[in-house]
């Protein structure tokens, strides 16, 4: 293939030759990020609620504390207190083989396990690790958001005879969600960028594509500058989407 030089130094032909690889990498990055945003938010909501759960009377009061609040606090502490990179390696090489293993997997074993691990192992581990990690951060966003709502809102709702779940759903979470949008947006952007770490276990996303190209040509500007720009465009798009959401859900807010 003929060399194409931009500005006298940028080998554009390398990028166009590997356009398919970059495109599939981009798709993988987007898919992994979206899955993890959705799952991480659901997990974060559940854990965040567990951390603020309270009950009026024993023994429900003690159950809340030891079966909800404490485990949730330990989970959050672990996943915020250890590097995501280490979590990815731990889950892929240590945890996943316990569950999916050709000889004695707890969930899946035999030939199916071999195929699954071969074809989707990195994807599974990466999604699980990033979901667990972001769930910890998002649960803190939910907890802070819920606790930032004036206590009088809960009292007004409960004194109307609305149960705790109804109060959460109709009164607290809609108000908290508005305040949580900016930090949730930040977190989504962080997840998009952190998904590059999953390349370490061989998931063919953007960073992996760049490393492949760099290895083939021993050229570094072209692939890494290219994916930098691609990440940048993606994060700009995400930030724009969050801004739109804020404008839409900010209406009618008095504060």
């Amino acid at each position, binding site marked *: 293939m003929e060399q194409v030089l931009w500005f006298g130094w940028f080998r554009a032909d390398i990028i166009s030759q590997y356009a398919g690889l970059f495109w599939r990498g981009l798709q993988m990055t987007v898919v992994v990020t979206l899955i993890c945003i959705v799952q991480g938010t659901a997990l974060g909501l559940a854990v965040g609620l567990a951390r603020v759960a309270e009950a009026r009377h024993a023994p429900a009061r003690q159950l809340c504390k030891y079966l909800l609040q404490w485990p949730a606090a330990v989970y959050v502490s672990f996943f915020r207190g250890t590097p995501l990179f280490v979590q990815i390696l731990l889950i892929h090489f240590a945890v996943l083989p316990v569950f999916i293993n050709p000889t004695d997997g707890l969930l899946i074993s035999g030939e199916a396990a071999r195929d699954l691990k071969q074809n989707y192992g990195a994807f599974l581990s990466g999604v699980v690790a990033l979901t667990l990690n972001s769930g910890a951060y998002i649960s803190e966003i939910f907890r802070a958001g819920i606790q930032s709502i004036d206590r009088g809102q809960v009292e007004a709702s409960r004194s*109307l005879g609305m149960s705790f779940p109804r109060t959460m759903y109709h009164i607290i979470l809609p108000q908290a969600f508005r305040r949580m949008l900016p930090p949730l947006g930040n977190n989504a952007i962080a997840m998009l960028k952190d998904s590059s770490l999953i390349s370490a276990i061989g998931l063919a996303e953007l960073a992996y594509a760049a490393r492949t190209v760099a290895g083939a040509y021993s050229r570094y500007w072209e692939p890494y500058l290219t994916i930098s720009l691609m990440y940048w465009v993606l994060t700009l798009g995400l930030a724009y989407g969050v801004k739109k959401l804020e404008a839409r859900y900010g209406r009618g807010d008095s504060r």
Partner: protein
Amino acid sequence: MDEVIRVKGLTKLFGQQAVLRGIDCAIQATEVVCVIGPSGSGKSTFLRCLNGLEEASGGEVLVHGVSVHGVKTDVDALRSEIGMVFQRFNLFPHKTVLENITLAPSKVRGLTPAQARVRACELLEKVGLLEKINAYPSQLSGGQQQRVAIARALAMQPRIMLFDEPTSALDPEMVGEVLAVMQALAEEGMTMVVVTHEMGFARQVADRVLFIDEGLVVEEGSPAAIFDHPQHERTRRFLSKVL
């Protein structure tokens, strides 16, 4: 007369501090009881114990014979029969006036949207705010917000209404409009317990006045008895400061 609320030896501790130190009282149907006393005397805490917003440390509160703080009590069902109005209104800022009023009747009582709307309109008419039906709370004055809060509580068709210093957060010129709504409610025969600093309202509307100080009911009686012939030194001292 029917007894709707019975309080027996109610105590409440916040940490080491005793806020309520053994309150006994009974409130009859259609009675309007005003609770007065210095700030920090425990009168708001007492009111909040009546619908279980505050846990009791000891003693018992019975509403229609049901123990408010009992382990097996369906506290949501109980509260749906007891309206409460707060000092700081506590309207839901993300919902319109109409939505504020219709939410609980639709979710808890199962009213259809049309039924809930009809009820909301009637109540807004009553508190003189029908034209604000689609406004958000932030677009209303304090007095208007408090009238909406009263309409919201009434929409559940409660048998008892609790008022926790309903005019204390209002500018002076808005106090009258809220008190007028409360007086009209009293005249319709609603059972009301009102914690208030409005002595004029207590004297005019109350059937009975409780003077609470340091977590105890020091004195109770008709407004005339309490305001004109207080028996206790503490009551006299308090009244000399506020009247």
